[in-house]
């Protein structure tokens, strides 16, 4: 049976986290960081792009950031829409006894980009513009994520925290996400049909050739 294509929340987080890292120009640093992390860590810790592109809702908490640092936080959540109510079912024959059922549907994923730091607004423009580029959209389409071009302006509102106003810009982008799941179902290979009247009863066995 073919494999399901159903991105988990972790898959979505990692896809967008790595894409934003790439958009911000941290590809090389990300590779260096991964090599250091997976190595013996004898050398000093290199620049870590994952410090600057993070996921919201860290389970056990996480250290914050400084007012001078440009940090992007991501949230990937599913949203309700007309399109997610439809499911297409296709029956695929596997053998005489079982069939594979293919179910296709579309989820609507909202990605929230929350940026802090002196360049938060500038970076919001950069990320947004890059997400519209065909090359970046291609990366997402490989994961069955298709941008919904319903563009809304970023919200730039500073935040007061401990006596200082922190730069803050936020925007959302929505994606349609095609999901495919497979299930194995048994075929009906024979049936016993009983026809009854008040006076008689006839049984017919129907068997698949």
């Amino acid at each position: 049976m073919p494999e399901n294509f159903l991105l988990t929340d972790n898959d979505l987080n990692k896809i967008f986290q790595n894409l934003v890292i790439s958009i911000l120009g941290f590809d090389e640093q990300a590779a260096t960081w991964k090599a250091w992390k997976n190595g013996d860590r004898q050398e000093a810790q290199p620049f870590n792009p994952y410090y600057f592109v993070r996921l919201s809702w860290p389970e056990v908490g996480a250290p914050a950031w400084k007012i001078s640092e440009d940090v992007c936080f991501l949230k990937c959540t599913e949203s309700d829409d007309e399109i997610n109510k439809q499911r297409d079912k296709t029956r695929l024959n596997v053998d005489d006894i079982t069939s594979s059922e293919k179910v296709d549907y579309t989820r609507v994923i909202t990605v929230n980009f929350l940026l802090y730091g002196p360049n938060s607004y500038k970076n919001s423009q950069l990320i947004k513009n890059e997400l519209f580029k065909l090359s970046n959209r291609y990366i997402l389409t490989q994961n069955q994520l298709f941008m919904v071009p319903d563009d809304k302006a970023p919200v730039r509102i500073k935040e007061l925290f401990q006596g200082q106003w922190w730069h803050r810009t936020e925007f959302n982008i929505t994606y349609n996400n095609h999901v495919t799941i497979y299930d194995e179902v048994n075929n009906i290979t024979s049936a016993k049909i009983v026809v009854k009247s008040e006076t008689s009863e006839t049984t017919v066995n129907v068997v698949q050739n």
Partner: protein
Amino acid sequence: MIDVADIINDPDYAKDYTILRSNGFFDEGGFTETITEIPDYSAVLPTNTKDLEQVPEADRISGSMTFYSSIPLFVTRNNDTDRGNSDKLRFKNELYKIVKLLDYSDFGLYKAIATRISGN
């Protein structure tokens, strides 16, 4: 200056507990931490009641304890060389996370209010 560490470490008040010190880094998928266990022996007192919260799904328990220590305690910190979450404190098989820290180190002690994180 008065050093009150002797009082909080006095066997009349002190109890065994363990400091679980977090140290970690940001990574693909989130913050990854490693935990170092540091045994401590100092005064521990309840801060408030152990509360029962009845939600439709189950009974959830909250509460907090006050820990005194002559060993430096930390809330979440973000230094270039030392990055980690608030200390967790294991006392009588319950786990607490520091949410308030009073640095009385000039007098030889730290006072921490820690919230119960087991949830059940």
